[in-house]
């Protein structure tokens, strides 16, 4: 974290588990993050790495039957760990907000968009309904939606995915939150729209002055838009570094292999792709020791014996691998 920036998210040892007390299964195993104002921290990983669950846990929105625990969870300096659900609800949309993967499903299909804006604005900004209408138009303008009056009278199914994601961003940022969790915000969109939406998010981040947690499977996206990258595997962060450092000198074998694969696919000259054998373990059963060991070409007996801790290898660069400890 660069010195001098104000911290908007400070989470320490976040754990998510599911199931009844007797057979509790741990899904997210101790994630710690710090996000500064006007900074973007990425959580990258493949499907089933626990990255989305981590994002939801920050919002207090994990599915029914799951439990979230953390040593510390501060958003904009406010402690969220001891909040009741109604108290947490007042924080959501005001201090912390979220943008989801599929804009086509994110808004209520039977309510006009304008009505949904009105509900959110009257609640989070404390404005009257008529003021909410004016605010909604300003907000749509800020996310590049023209013809706001007509749009607000429409239903979600009358709009394209790109338009809906802009609407969603406007709603999430209406109360200028301290932190935005963006969960695969462009995955459901076409490539040309991805660039538009990411540019919008970056621009709004500056204007609103918020911090951002970018949850994504796309290393390319992360390389361009994140300041810091956390690579997740089987419910743990296995490597954390400033973006440039991560892409220039990755240390964890998983990060190494992933980056190599992505780059080889992107460069036409490669004759044979060096793929990672096998597939990731189920989130609730990562095996003993390092979860990546069965797929790791450097794995030794030690790897299956102990779970490696995140340890610093350089300024702001932490790795959870026994090899890096020497």
């Amino acid at each position, binding site marked *: 974290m660069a010195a001098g920036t104000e911290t908007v998210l400070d989470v320490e040892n976040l754990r998510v588990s599911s199931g009844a007390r007797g057979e509790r299964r741990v899904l997210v195993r101790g994630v710690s993050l710090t996000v500064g104002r006007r900074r973007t921290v990425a959580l990258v990983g493949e499907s089933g790495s626990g990255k989305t669950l981590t994002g939801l846990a920050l919002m207090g929105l994990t599915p029914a039957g799951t439990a979230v625990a953390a040593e510390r969870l501060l958003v904009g300096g406010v402690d969220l760990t001891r909040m009741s659900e109604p108290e947490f609800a007042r924080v959501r949309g005001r201090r912390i907000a979220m943008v989801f993967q599929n804009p086509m499903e994110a808004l209520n299909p039977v309510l006009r968009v304008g009505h949904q804006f009105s509900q959110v604005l009257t609640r989070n900004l404390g404005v009257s309904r008529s003021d909410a209408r004016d605010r909604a138009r300003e907000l749509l303008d800020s996310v590049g939606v023209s013809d706001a009056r007509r749009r607000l009278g429409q239903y979600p199914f009358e709009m394209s995915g790109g338009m809906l994601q802009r609407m969603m961003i406007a709603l999430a940022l209406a109360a200028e939150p301290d932190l935005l969790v963006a969960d695969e915000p462009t995955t459901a969109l076409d490539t040309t729209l991805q660039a538009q939406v990411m540019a919008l998010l970056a621009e709004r981040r500056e204007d609103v002055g918020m911090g951002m947690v970018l949850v994504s499977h796309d290393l390319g996206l992360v390389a361009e838009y994140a300041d810091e990258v956390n690579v997740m595997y089987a419910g743990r962060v296995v490597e954390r570094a400033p973006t440039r450092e991560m892409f220039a000198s990755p240390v964890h074998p998983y990060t190494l292999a992933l980056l190599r694969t992505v780059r080889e696919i992107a460069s036409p000259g490669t004759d044979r792709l060096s*793929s990672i*054998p*096998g*597939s990731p*373990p*189920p989130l609730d059963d990562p095996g003993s020791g390092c979860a990546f060991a*069965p*797929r790791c070409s450097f794995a030794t007996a030690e790897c299956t014996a102990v779970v490696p801790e995140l340890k610093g290898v350089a300024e702001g660069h932490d790795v959870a691998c026994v090899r890096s400890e020497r």
Partner: protein
Amino acid sequence: MSAVPVSVRDATGPTVTVPRWWRGLSWRALVGAGGVAAFLVAAVLAGAVSPYSPDALAIGSRLEGPSAAHLLGTDQLGRDVLTRILYGLRPSLESGFAAIMMAAVVGVALGLPSGYFGSLVDTVVTRVLDLLVAWPAVFLALAIVLLLGTGELQVIVAIGLAEVPVFSRLVRSIAMVAARSDHVVAARAAGASSLRIMLRHVLPFVVTPLVVQFAIAAPQALVAEASLNYLGLGTHPPAPSLGAMVSEGQSFLAYAAGPIVFPILVIVALVVSLTLLADGLQDRLDPRSRIGAR
């Protein structure tokens, strides 16, 4: 040939052991299954269990309360209520099962091509079914009785016909989705005929929902059977049936409740058992459980 590295985990893959069929069935489903089984056994063994004939009159002992000789008492004609209930279970179970079987068979025969081919076939089938749905089931039954007279077979046809649209629509909706899914496109691309695709690539996906629907329809059919018998449209007296017992006993309600209350309890117990079983099956087989409402 295989130059692709296959790791240990990849070779084994995430193994999923296919569970024994009852694992995951809730206790409610098991209670339901037990109840249904008990009633089946009782109906089959009616003759062996009971010392009386269902039609044996005993004018001297009419409308008696429960006693050691008559565990559930006697009715207005002095017949043993328990015996009549046991024998009365037979037409209920038979007709109910036969009616749903008929509905399922006709439903598949209509729904499968309707959903798979769509267009004209679908339009014709849908129109025909609309006509069936135009009347509530009892009206349909009344029309059939009007045409064919009263009797068990008529009851079966009436209930079966009323249930056909439910089954057909269910099969149609699944067939429609399946017909557009990639695995059917792949089969077509491989040159498979429509018949082959319907039987091998669509029908297997219908089976589970069909079983669930069968279970949902069973208690409904039973209720319908009892109701038609109550209206006097089913079995001919003096043959025992649960519905008829209630209607016959109603005039004597002021004097003895037994001949009515016991058959009702049996019907309710049977229907509840079937419902529990259906709910259990639905939860087990169909994660997105829905109520089969028509």
